[in-house]
Structure formats: structure tokens, C-alpha cells
């Protein structure tokens, strides 16, 4: 039976949270009720990436791109488009500039994007292996098993120049080569899906939207290094991703693409899911392996590297989700093809979770070497509310802030490290003039205090000390000496901490001190926070010339500390003020002043 129309409903976590599942069910029941169920297939896909405008519904072949759809819109979509063949104009995505319908490929958010990792997200139904296979899925595994030797696979990876997407950027082929070398009775392949960076969801979306790409790549690795067993270590906080992965593994087993004697070649590879339990440090590879072993996730010193001595002491290749998802494409299209994309040292693409104060939050995949300006302004549509750009944080709690003057720098591993930040896993958080860098540094440091495993002193004590100093500065009791101490402790931690968490925890603080020293000084010397975020440093007052005496502020004040009347104008009793900012927000005349 051939369908005339296909309706794709985004089934990523973001859209599911906004009732995408209800939309999906309603579309099906409406199609049935209106007697067109044989004409249209409704499919739940992975993330379209354009989370800002979710839930997203796309109708093919008309290429109608509907945004912010509600379950109650389902009836109209079926009645108009499927029954009568007319688009539901009011739901179509419209650009700010062009008011007319625009084609999907012309939507600015998707221009400049280049999808390798997310090639199937938003296109296939991730719960149906046939759809993955129809888009060249498992062709790479078949090619490897039927016509490539382990050496050939590694040579192809080497040609591609693929580097680990988890943050540090270690060449993938070398990891595999290290593990292939030693003889061992058992070797392991591990997928790091413990995406702990707050504000990042690239890996979750990839697993939710295209789980087979990870499974296929892990099997290829198993063949290459001689491992018969793999583990996917995934955050327990990602129930939808876990569910889709379970379905995918079961389907792959049914099709003989996992398990014993894969494709009749004698090669066997089995995959198991292991859940994390909310520990950021488990994103560090040695801690992750400890966690799979069922212990406290505490890192151990390297070397020996996991590639030689990993899970239960056996050679183990561990890559993150995004790295894995690249591999099938490299095998089918060739390492040379992949190496043409990107910069001299960093090949391929990078997926970013673009969030914060941009107009278009979402998941974007761009070639390495794209500039931050292109990502934030062209794809992200610029800063929300016309505010001024302050900085962008890459690498989350391990990274640093990138300021306006570096917006045109092509992004790759080296350029970001050179700026005192890092590629990290792909969180890209945009801040505007209303964000205080000291407050954000404190936020990240608090995160590291919570997440430090406590094994090594530099991290355990260092994060705590840095946090209490930052806290003092945001409260206006910091001293100039404190600023020196922050730098001193930070540099000591970078050298002495045991693992990546402790070594990079000072980065947000050190990079903001470097780029925004004047703001730190304002907090310390002038006792001022220009963004108005640090409550202890903010004083609200009323400009008598602007106040018209309407009294709205007084009525909204939760602690009744604003008094006055029409003739006297209003005043704020600073002693009693709790600095909630309500008066500032409600005043229509700009009469309430901050600072």
C-alpha cells in the first residue's frame, strides 16, 4: 500500500514535553475519523533540531513545515491538507524578514548546517530498523565484515581525521589501534552516553533520533579490535533515549546484525545497556568504567589508558555518542570524503546544543571551521530581545567564555583551546548583557563542588575554596587579594588534579577573569553588579522625575516596602526591600532604577 502523504512528528524530548505524543495520536485518530487513514502515514521521528519552535510537524511530499503545533491542530491538518490538499497556512513557519511561506531548506536556521551525525534525525522513525536500513543503515557494517580487514578500517579512520567528540579530541583511529594491538581473552567496546554538561543535549538527541547509527559503529569497532562485547553507558535521566536504544538493540538482534555469527560471517558482538545514576564525573572515561563495574565512579590515574587496560582490566575502546555516529558514514563514503570537511586539524562536523539568550535555541550541526558569529547570528537568529551579546560559553563547566572580539574565529579544537576554552561535548550557551560573569562562574563552580568525587585534594578542596571566594565577591565582601587567590588556586588545580573534571573546573573562572577583569573589579571595589544579577549589590530606587505616581509598583511589592501617593511620588525603603525586582519589571515608565 502506497501512502500519498507522510506526516513526520518530532519525537525528541523537547517536543514530547510539549505534547508531541498527543499530536501524534490525534493525527492518527483524525486520519481514521476523516476516512483517510490509507492515504497518510504518521511517523514519530527524532529531533528536527529547531527546538525553539517546537513541537514541529512536517508533511511530505508537500514539504510543509509546521511549528508550535498543538494537539487541537491535528483535525485541521488532516481536514485541510490530507483531505483537501491545502496547507494550513497559519501553522507554517514564517521568517521575520519574509512573511510568506518559505521552503524548509531556505529557513535560516537550517542554512549553513551540514548534517552527518544528525543525518537521520527528523527523517526516520527511530523505532523502526527498516527505515534506518533504507537510508544505507548497516551498509557500513556489511562492507566491513565482507570486504575489509581490521587494518583497513583503521586506515580509513586515519584518513578521515576523525577526533573524539567528547571534548579532548583524541584521534579515534589511534585509540582503536592501541586496543587492537594487545592479545587478550576479552576486549570491550564502550559508548559514553553520559552527557552531563548542563545545557547540552546533542548525544541524547542522537540516541533518540538515530540509535542504530551508534549500534552499527560499535559493532564495526568490535570487529576491528577483536571485541565481542559492548556496553552503552547512558544517563538514567534520559528515559526516552534508553527506551529507543533498547528497541533498536532488540531489532538489530532479530535481524542478525547483533549477537552470534553476524551476517553469517562468524563474527559475534553483543551489546548491553548500563545506566548512570547522576554523577557528572562519570563522563570521565576511567570513572565511567568504574561505574559500569558497579562501583563508585572515581577516576584512576592514566596511564595505563583504557585502550590498554580498561573495563575489568581488559583493553577497551571508549568513544562518545557523536564520535560513534560519524563512523558508519566514514566507512560508506570513505575517509577522504570526510577529510574534505572541516579545517586543517579538525575534520568533519560538530553538533552544538545552542541555548541561552538566542532567538533560535536548538540542535545545530555545522562543519568544523564555522565561526561563532555564523552559529549565533545566522543560525541562531541573533540575541533575544535585541540585547547586546556578552559572551558564549563552550565546554560547559570545563570550558571558558568567548567574547565578541573572537566571534569571527573559525571554530575547531585548537582555536577554542587557544582562547582558554575547549570544544567540550558541544554545549554552546549564549549570554547577553543581563548576565553577570561572576555569577555564572559561581554557578559553574558550585556545579563542580557538587560533582567533584572527592578523591584528590586539589579538586575536592580547590573547588570549594574557589566557590567560597566567588560567593564573597558576589556578595560584595571580596577583596583584591581574593582575585589573586582565585587565579593561584585555579592554576594549581589545572596542574595537580587527578582527572579532567578537576583540571578544567577552574576554566570558567579563569577565562572570565581574563576577559572581564573590569567586572570583577566592579564587584570588589565599587560593590556593583552591572547586570543586576548579584542581589546583594543591587539597590532599587525610584526616579522622582519619571514616576507618575500610579502606584503599580507598590501594589506588586510582596513586602510592602514601597510607599507614596500621586502627589508625593513613590519611594522604596531599601532596608526592607528583598530585591525581587518586581517593581522594576512592572513599571511602564522606566522610573524604577536598578543599582
Amino acid at each position: 500500500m502506497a501512502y500519498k502523504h507522510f506526516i513526520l512528528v518530532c519525537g525528541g524530548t523537547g517536543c514530547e514535553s510539549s505534547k508531541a505524543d498527543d499530536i501524534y495520536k490525534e493525527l492518527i485518530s483524525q486520519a481514521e475519523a476523516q476516512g483517510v487513514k490509507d492515504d497518510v502515514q504518521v511517523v514519530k521521528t527524532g529531533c528536527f533540531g529547531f527546538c525553539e519552535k517546537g513541537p514541529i510537524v512536517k508533511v511530505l511530499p508537500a514539504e510543509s513545515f509546521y511549528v508550535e503545533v498543538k494537539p487541537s491542530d491535528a483535525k485541521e491538518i488532516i481536514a485541510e491538507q490530507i483531505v483537501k490538499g491545502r496547507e494550513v497556512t497559519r501553522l507554517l513557519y514564517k521568517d521575520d524578514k519574509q512573511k510568506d511561506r518559505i521552503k524548509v531548506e531556505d529557513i535560516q536556521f537550517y542554512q549553513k548546517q551540514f548534517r552527518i551525525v544528525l543525518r537521520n534525525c527528523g527523517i526516520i522513525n527511530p523505532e523502526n530498523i527498516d527505515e534506518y536500513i533504507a537510508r544505507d543503515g548497516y551498509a557500513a557494517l556489511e562492507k566491513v565484515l565482507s570486504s575489509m580487514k581490521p587494518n583497513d578500517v583503521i586506515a580509513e579512520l586515519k584518513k578521515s581525521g576523525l577526533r573524539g567528540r567528547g571534548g579532548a579530541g583524541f584521534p579515534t583511529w589511534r585509540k582503536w589501534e592501541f586496543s587492537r594491538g594487545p592479545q587478550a581473552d576479552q576486549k570491550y567496546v564502550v559508548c559514553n552516553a553520559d552527557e552531563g554538561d548542563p545545557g547540552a543535549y546533542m548525544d541524547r538527541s542522537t540516541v533518540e533520533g538515530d540509535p542504530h547509527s551508534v549500534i552499527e559503529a560499535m559493532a564495526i569497532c568490535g570487529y576491528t579490535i577483536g571485541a565481542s562485547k559492548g556496553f552503552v553507558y547512558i544517563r538514567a535521566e534520559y528515559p526516552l533515549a534508553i527506551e529507543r536504544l533498547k528497541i533498536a538493540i532488540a531489532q538489530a538482534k532479530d535481524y542478525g546484525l547483533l549477537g552470534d555469527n553476524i551476517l553469517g560471517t562468524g563474527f559475534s558482538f553483543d551489546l548491553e545497556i548500563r545506566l548512570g545514576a547522576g554523577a557528572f564525573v562519570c563522563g570521565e572515561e576511567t570513572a565511567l568504567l568504574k561505574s559500569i563495574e558497579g562501583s563508585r565512579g572515581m577516576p584512576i590515574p592514566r596511564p595505563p589508558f583504557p585502550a590498554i587496560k580498561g573495563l575489568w582490566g581488559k583493553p577497551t575502546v571508549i568513544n562518545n555518542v557523536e564520535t560513534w555516529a560519524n563512523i558508519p558514514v566514514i566507512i560508506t563514503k570513505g575517509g577522504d570524503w570526510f577529510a574534505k570537511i572541516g579545517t586543517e586539524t579538525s575534520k568533519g562536523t560538530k553538533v552544538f546544543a545552542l541555548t541561552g539568550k538566542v532567538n533560535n535555541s536548538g540542535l545545530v550541526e555545522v562543519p568544523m571551521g564555522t565561526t561563532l558569529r555564523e552559529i549565533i547570528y545566522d543560525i541562531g537568529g541573533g540575541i533575544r530581545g535585541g540585547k547586546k551579546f556578552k559572551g558564549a560559553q563552550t565546554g560547559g563547566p570545563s570550558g571558558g567564555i568567548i567574547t565578541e572580539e573572537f566571534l569571527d574565529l573559525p571554530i575547531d579544537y585548537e582555536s577554542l583551546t587557544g582562547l582558554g576554552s575547549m570544544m567540550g561535548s558541544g554545549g554552546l550557551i549564549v549570554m547577553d548583557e543581563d548576565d553577570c560573569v561572576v555569577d555564572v562562574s559561581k554557578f559553574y563552580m558550585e556545579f563542580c563542588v557538587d560533582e567533584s568525587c572527592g578523591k584528590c585534594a586539589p579538586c575536592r578542596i580547590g573547588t570549594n575554596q574557589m566557590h567560597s571566594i566567588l560567593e564573597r565577591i558576589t556578595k560584595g565582601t571580596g577583596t583584591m587579594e581574593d582575585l589573586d587567590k582565585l587565579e593561584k588556586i585555579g592554576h594549581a588545580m589545572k596542574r595537580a588534579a587527578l582527572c579532567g573534571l578537576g583540571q578544567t573546573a577552574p576554566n570558567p573562572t579563569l577565562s572570565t577573569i581574563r576577559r572581564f577583569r573590569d567586572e570583577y573589579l566592579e564587584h570588589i571595589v565599587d560593590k556593583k553588579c552591572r547586570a543586576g544579577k548579584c542581589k546583594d549589590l543591587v539597590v532599587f530606587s525610584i526616579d522622582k522625575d519619571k514616576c507618575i505616581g500610579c502606584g503599580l509598583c507598590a501594589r506588586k511589592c510582596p513586602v510592602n516596602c514601597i510607599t507614596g501617593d500621586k502627589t508625593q511620588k513613590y519611594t522604596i525603603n531599601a532596608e526592607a526591600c528583598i530585591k525581587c525586582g518586581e517593581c522594576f519589571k512592572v513599571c511602564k515608565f522606566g522610573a524604577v532604577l536598578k543599582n
Partner: protein
Amino acid sequence: MPAARIEFSKGLQDFIQEWKDKPGNLIMILHRVQQEFSYIPREAAERLAEELSMPLAKIYGVITFYHLFKTTKPGKHRIAVCMGTACYLKGGQTLLEECEDILGIKGHEVTDDGLFSIDAVRCVGCCGLAPVLMVGNDVYGKLTKEQVPEIIAKYRG
């Protein structure tokens, strides 16, 4: 002293049997126990120690290391306010304070009637919807402080 016998459902017992001999099983089993009780009661940990022939100290070592494992019973409706970076920048802290004000409890506490508990959590992965809070499995996004009372009221019934 014999360990207090806490009731385990058939499903949980089967799960333990299935995983008993697999290496590195502890975290998976603890997840399953928590699914059953909504936290990990001490008696359950004691029973696991016995059934898995594992020191109780090792089990508690793991429980207390990982944020997700709870040793006290949470409220019937668990409010999780996202404190991921995107939500934090867009006002997550204000949502948290509003919840605390309305319910009269602090983060990690439970209301007297056992109905609600509040947790500040790290990134629930809906950054496009920031700021976000969850009640149980329901996600509420793009929130302002003003919408919080209404959301909480829905669960009081």
C-alpha cells in the same frame, strides 16, 4: 542480628535473579529497587547485601556517591526544577524560590502531608524550553514565576 525482611515484589525478585551473576550489577539493581520504593530503604539495602553477598558498606558507598539514589522517601509528587545552565540563565532560580515559597519547604525536603518534595536538578535536557520544571514525569517549559502556583495547584487535588 538477622536482617529485617522487607517485602520485594515478584518483578524485583526476578530482576535480581537475572542480574545476580552479572559483573557490575549493583547500580542496575539499585535503580530497580528505587523504582519499586521511590527511594532505597535501609532494609532493602540490607537484604541486597545478603542476597548479593556484598558488604553493606559497599552498597552504601555506591548509593551515597550517585545523586539519583535517595535514602529518604520523596514526596508523592516530585518537583524537579532544572538548574542546567540554560534554565539558570533564564530564571530557574526564581522558579525554585517560588516553589519553595508556595510549599514552605526547601530543596530536598518533603511537605508534611508527604505530597510534594522539591529538588534542584541538573539539566533535564529540554534546554530549548528553558526555564523548565518537572512534576513527576510532566514537563513544563518556558515558564514564568506567575505560572508556578497554578501548576502546583493541579497536583493538590
